[in-house]
């Protein structure tokens, strides 16, 4: 697989490690009343779809940026690559 890094251009997927579902960006509020249940779901439970999947990749042997890669788990085709930082900011996060 080739990951088209937004800053560095096309890079071999072997330079990256995959952390899994991009919903891991949406860390729950630890002070909420239902924090225990939310963290359980956040940490352990996954959608695991066959088809389009948004996931976090870390450019470990590169510029060490986190990316959100939209990829097809049936064909391994990559549709979209974004900087995780920007995705998080769009969701209203500070960084």
């Amino acid at each position: 697989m080739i990951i088209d890094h937004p800053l560095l251009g096309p890079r071999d997927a072997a330079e990256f490690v995959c952390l899994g579902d991009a919903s891991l960006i949406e860390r729950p509020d630890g002070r909420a009343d239902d924090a225990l249940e939310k963290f359980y779901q956040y940490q352990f439970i996954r959608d695991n779809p066959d088809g389009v999947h948004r996931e976090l990749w870390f450019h470990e042997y590169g510029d060490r940026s986190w990316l959100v890669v939209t990829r097809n788990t049936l064909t391994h085709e990559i549709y979209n690559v974004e900087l995780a930082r920007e995705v998080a900011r769009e969701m209203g996060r500070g960084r």
Partner: protein
Amino acid sequence: MRYSAWTLFKEGISGNRGWKPMWREPDPKSEYDIVVVGAGHGMATGYYLAKEFGCRSVAVLEKGWLGSGNIGRNTTIVRSNYMLPENQPFYELSLKLWEGLEQALNFNVMVSQRGIINLCHSDPQRDAFARRGNAMRLSGADAELLDRDGVRRLCPFLNFENARFPITGGLWQKRGGTVRHDAVAWGYARAADDLGVDLVQNCEVTGFLISNGTCTGVETTRGTIKAKKVGVAVAGSSGRVMARAGMRLPIESHVLQAFVSEGLKPVLPGVLTFGAGHFYVSQSDKGGLVFGGDIDGYNSYAQRGNLPTVEDVCEGGMALMPMIGRARLLRIWGGLVDMSMDGSPFIDKTHIEGLYFNGGWNYGGFKATPASGYCFAHLIARDAPHPFAAGMRLDRFRRGAAIDEKGVGAQPNLH
């Protein structure tokens, strides 16, 4: 038809005209007491339901052909060298069942207890193996700690002088070994069929009949099938199948590749695993080196892997035994593995009445086939977990009771 030396001889001299198909090809009935989805562990489950728990109306539904799943795609290693109390007695039960399986099924599944050696490459790793060996022996399994010379006597060809990863010893389980994977699927299918279990191939489950929190059957590509109880054991497809019952699981689907070299003269004494990278290898009876390593590391339902992993696995092999460097690879393939959040499996009821789940076998569920089938059948038939599978619950993360052999936490691609 019972297989024996006599039937072989009789058929041999009479032109082999008397052999019968090993199982029927029934059309699915509209209703069964128990429907099991997936013909890997599910096939074993069907057999034990009929054999041990007296269930007479059982169907095993398989999307493809028998053996098309991981039961026919794995590297055939069986062992019981786990450490944690929720796992080890279960895998030791499985190894004991393997030891009697050929007699029980009247089928040659080629159980070969050629031994498995997990190599260690540092003093701390050897200490960890000593501890693991003790845990194994507490469960009644066998384990022997080898020093460097002990390993050298058995495997003189290993790269003992590797500057980065010298071999400091190994943990040897003599009763471990290999079993012919397809034959296991065939043997269980034949024995289950004999007991009246319907194996229905080319029958994909596309949905569940659920009303008022109770599962009453399945929708399939071959029509609706009603059932009092439904057990699902679909490995890498767990996520997409259970989603049809509205469930999300502590599981990710990944791809694991397997490799076979050209045939060589006998060189390996048994199964060997590299403790510094991830590489495990055995030699098939035809002479090919059968080996594997890490999963590819990203979610996949593609049943095929990518080249970086091929390179990584072969590098592991070269580091361990440089003598294989000129052997050519004949075949590579991939299978969908159900990686769980702690690396351990689930055999449990779901919150939906009448719906049972078996999965999360990671890359190591072939060795579990007999015990998994047995314990899943126990759970479905009796509505109570088998004592040896009692920790394999779906809600264990909620309770803080993860079964994490490696201690790496909730990241499936690290297990």
